[in-house]
């Protein structure tokens, strides 16, 4: 009989505790974001799309060598100047193959190649995934999806 009553009382007490927990949550600011209008800042080491500072690049080709999926394609030609400094032929990035491992970023001796913070990377055409890294405006459309 005593057990019967203690059971009821402990039930009520536990119910009140649970209700208090949920009540506290009501006054907490929601943790979710209103996605298309509010966007989450990506973390510092987030690996988005491969990007390049062409002026820093020394055309050593280490990124091309280390890439496990062979998604980078670099061609170099001799410069026309007196010192015959190497110049870009082309530097292509095939995002269809990229596995976002970040090895190219790690191996680069001058930090010329890096991974940016773009994460909305769905497209309607295959062609858009073949990116020319030397093009300055290559990621404009990706960074601002509203720009058509």
């Amino acid at each position, binding site marked *: 009989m005593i057990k019967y009553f203690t059971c009821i009382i402990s039930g009520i007490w536990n119910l009140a505790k*649970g209700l208090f927990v*949920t009540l506290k949550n009501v006054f907490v600011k929601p943790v979710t974001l209103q996605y298309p209008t509010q966007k989450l800042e990506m973390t510092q080491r987030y690996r988005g799309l491969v990007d390049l500072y062409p002026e820093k690049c020394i055309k050593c080709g280490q990124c091309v060598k280390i890439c496990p999926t062979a998604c980078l394609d670099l061609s170099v030609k001799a410069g026309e100047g007196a010192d015959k400094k190497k110049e870009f032929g082309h530097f292509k990035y095939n995002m269809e193959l990229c596995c976002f491992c970040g090895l190219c970023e790690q191996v680069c001796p001058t930090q010329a190649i890096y991974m940016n913070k773009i994460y909305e990377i769905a497209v309607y055409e295959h062609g858009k995934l073949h990116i020319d890294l030397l093009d300055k405006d290559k990621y404009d459309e990706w960074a601002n999806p509203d720009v058509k």
Partner: protein
Amino acid sequence: MIIPVLTLIIMLIVGAVVLGFIAVSAMFLIWWERKVSAHIQTRYGPMRVGWHGALQSVADVIKLLLKENITPSGVDRLSWWLAPFFAVVPVVMVFVCIPFGNIFGIELIARDLNIGILYIMALTSICVLGIFMAGWGSNNKYSLLGGMRSAAQIVSYEIPLVLAMVTAVMFAGSLSMQKIVEAQKGLWFVFQPNMAIAFAIFIIAGTAEVNRTPFDIPEAESELVAGFHTEYSGMKFAMFFLGEYTNMFVISALAATLFLGGWSGPFLPPVIWFLIKTYGLVTFMMWIRWTLPRVRVDQLMGFAWKVLTPVSFANLIVAGWILMK
């Protein structure tokens, strides 16, 4: 007997007002429930349609109206078609004797029946029939199980519910809703110790009556898909939904009338007091829903028969002793 035309017109107007109120109230409650649940889970809930998603329910209703009404093969036609009406019509009929208070001296009650409580109890018991018909008619094992569970649950919880109501009726000395409100002019019933227990029993049993968590085993999503309304879609499903939310309003309105003094209160107009109390209790039921997990069937039955029924009987005896003293 020929009903005079004027009476007919008044009947139609009152009926339209009540139906309009029910529809708007149900839509508001659906939006409110989504908001309450969202904030309890630290989300925003609907935000896009209208101010803070206020028109989300309107959009949902339009969607449900436009949806195809699918009738699965092998259903029991009669009970399949009638079930949604059985779920809604009795709940709407209850509104006949719910006292909303008064505006400019006009009593906002369709008809103050002298057997009001009895009438309400009789009608709310019919809802289980709708659920069971839906379960039986759907030709689906989940629906049938949901209907069976619902019948067992509602029949069990009706006993403590009625006993709790009888306690209030004994103190008021009348079955009429208006007289019960008037009896609480001095002190609300809930402030008397044994009536507070009756109020708690009423809220628990009422939550079970309207099939809400923690007593939502008739439509337990994780085990029975959606229970009795698994096979329903479009407007028929919307009618079950309307019935469920209106039922919640009715149970809260009853609790407010029987224990919290109904429309009586200081300063504010009676209608406002009634709506504050009712929607407050509805919010409390939502709060409970988003706090507690679902109970098992055996726990549910055990709780009804081993705890609620004896406690409400004991409470009734104490009430009788207080009145006889």
